[in-house]
């Protein structure tokens, strides 16, 4: 019996090796090198065999694991323990996380690079939380979420550069515009579900991007929008030398000028925006509309029979999810000071969906962990340049193998009765 299992998994892993060979052979094995005039092919079979060997070994270990369920016990017990910790002590965990995020800019090892990465991770956490409303709670697979991110960014950029309004006025406006586009997308897809919904949302994301490229008069096409105003600290700009009769952040507080001030301010800005998103989601889950989203995800017909209006429920999910995407977009625009359609390609949507799915659909903490993991890994491997996408893919494969339902797949109930704690 056991021997059979081993032979079977060995055969299976050899087959995996064959597939790996077919994939890596041409992609990695044949390298084109330009020498003088023309390209020459240099084979690199050593690396190919190494990679194929790794695939065979990995597959074999996974097979043995699933057959015996003992090999990786330490891993699964670790992760289940971890899930327990996060469930039992969710509050402590969250508070520690937030405290760490608050003091992070002032830790001794924190430099400009860490701050930039942290801001990026927080942006993705916010996007993940926003999309979690649509995908995790309402169960509507949206592959075009980047469209709302783009709408938010462009609304902010256009309003701020045209009218010169401040960030704090443009931010809610950008959210409103994005929510409007969310409803715009929501209407045609009301009847769609699953794969079909995914395809249409995917298309919607592309439509927005193509409009941004081609509507030259308004969006400045592929050249993008430059000179987007930076946010000010409640009216105090972050400038080295403020204009005549105007105070800037460092003169007002009597500090030495440093570019880090602005970075730290941006960091706290996105931290607050992300926490607002989270707080909002946690609260709305306990309200009828939030509960209706989750019910809709579970069973649409049952919802109808109970008097839930699926049209309104879906539209609010799209609109509110889009609104947070729009907020994140306007943050992105003010941080970059320059936006172009290139920042809003499909890969962005894919990353955000990956964060939500790998985090465990509907889990707020899962989104945080998945963002740190996925964005962090691609950052760590930044030196590998184009190969860092392989690290990204590898990270996704690892999560899917060990935690197929996402890092934190447990749904927390919205109501706990007194005395039912256990």
């Amino acid at each position, binding site marked *: 019996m056991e021997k059979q299992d081993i032979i079977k998994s060995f055969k299976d892993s050899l087959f995996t090796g064959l597939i790996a060979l077919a994939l890596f052979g041409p992609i990695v094995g044949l390298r084109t090198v330009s020498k003088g005039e023309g390209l020459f092919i240099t084979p690199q079979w050593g690396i190919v065999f190494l990679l194929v060997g790794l695939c065979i070994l990995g597959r074999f270990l996974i097979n043995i694991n699933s057959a015996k369920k003992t090999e990786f016990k330490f891993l699964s017990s670790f992760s289940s323990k971890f899930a327990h910790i996060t469930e039992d002590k969710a509050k402590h965990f969250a508070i520690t996380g937030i405290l760490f995020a608050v003091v992070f800019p002032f830790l001794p090892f924190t430099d400009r690079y860490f701050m930039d990465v942290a801001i990026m991770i927080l942006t993705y956490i916010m996007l993940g939380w926003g999309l979690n409303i649509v995908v995790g709670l309402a169960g509507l697979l949206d592959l075009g979420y980047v469209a709302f991110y783009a709408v938010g960014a462009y609304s902010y950029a256009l309003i701020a550069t045209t009218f010169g309004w401040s960030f704090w006025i443009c931010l809610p406006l950008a959210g409103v515009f994005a929510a409007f586009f969310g409803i715009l997308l929501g209407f045609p897809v009301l009847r769609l579900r699953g794969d079909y919904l995914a395809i249409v949302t995917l298309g919607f994301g592309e439509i927005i991007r193509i409009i941004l490229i081609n509507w030259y008069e308004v969006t400045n096409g592929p050249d993008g929008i430059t000179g987007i105003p930076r946010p000010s600290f409640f009216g105090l700009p972050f400038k080295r030398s403020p204009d005549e009769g105007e105070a800037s952040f460092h003169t007002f507080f009597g500090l030495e000028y440093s570019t880090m001030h602005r970075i730290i301010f941006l960091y706290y800005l996105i931290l607050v925006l992300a926490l607002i998103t989270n707080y909002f989601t946690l609260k709305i889950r306990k309200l*009828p509309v939030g*509960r*209706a989203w*989750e*019910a809709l995800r*579970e*069973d649409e*017909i*049952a*919802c*109808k*029979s*109970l*008097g*839930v*209006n699926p049209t309104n429920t879906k539209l609010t999910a799209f609109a509110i999810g889009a609104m947070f995407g729009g907020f994140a977009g306007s943050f992105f625009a003010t941080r970059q000071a320059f936006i172009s359609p290139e920042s809003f390609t499909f890969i962005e949507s894919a990353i955000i969906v990956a964060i939500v799915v790998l985090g465990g659909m509907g889990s707020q903490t899962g989104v945080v962990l998945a963002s740190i993991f996925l964005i962090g890994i691609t950052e760590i491997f930044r030196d590998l340049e184009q190969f860092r996408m392989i690290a990204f893919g590898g990270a996704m494969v690892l999560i899917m193998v060990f935690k197929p339902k996402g890092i934190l797949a447990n*749904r927390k*109930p*919205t*109501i*706990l*009765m007194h005395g*039912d704690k256990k």
Partner: protein
Amino acid sequence: MLKITNVETFYGKIQALRGVDIDVNDGEIVSLIGSNGAGKSTLLMTISGVNKARNGNITFNGERIENREPHKIVDLGICQVPEGRRIFSRLTVEENLRLGAFTNEKGKHFETDIKDVYDLFPVLSDRKTQRGGTLSGGEQQMLAIGRALMSKPKVLLLDEPSLGIAPKLVNQIFASIKNINKEKNVTIFLVEQNAKKALELADRAYVLVNGKVTIMGSGQELLKNKDIQAAYLEGGTKN
């Protein structure tokens, strides 16, 4: 109270209901029996507004409802327990019940309403923090009925409450249906394949064949009807 007149419902080109006439009076238990594919569930979905009737009309207390949205029909006081229970399986029992009282208007007396449901089905009270999907079939059926009761219906539409449930629990569920009718004054329109049980419970009953009502009468009359015994009661049962 609920009056269905000459209703015809189609799925695309296929006609599922061929002119159905049914009356349900206030306070009654009315059963509709029929075999697979007779159109029983289609009729309930048409009453609930999920499927639209192409011809005919449905009135509830004199108001035409055949063109209303499903959620408006629930607001009027017609709630359905759909076939196969359709519990929100990842939500807890209590959350399921809360969804029954979805609209604010109906959530007003939430605490007393939920207590009524727990009194009716004590097992749900023991399991209120459990996920719906972890309940047994019978418990899920109780939850589905309880969830519908949370919307304070005047008419409860039940679609095959005995489907896939242990016989012992079926008796219990039918007893609770009777209880809901008598104690809470909820009119019941029951659709069943378990003809014997449904007819025993019913004040009046209808038989639906190929989208048409063929026989109607009191529950007792139909139990004794030779044709029905042959077709639905397996030639008459012993007990």
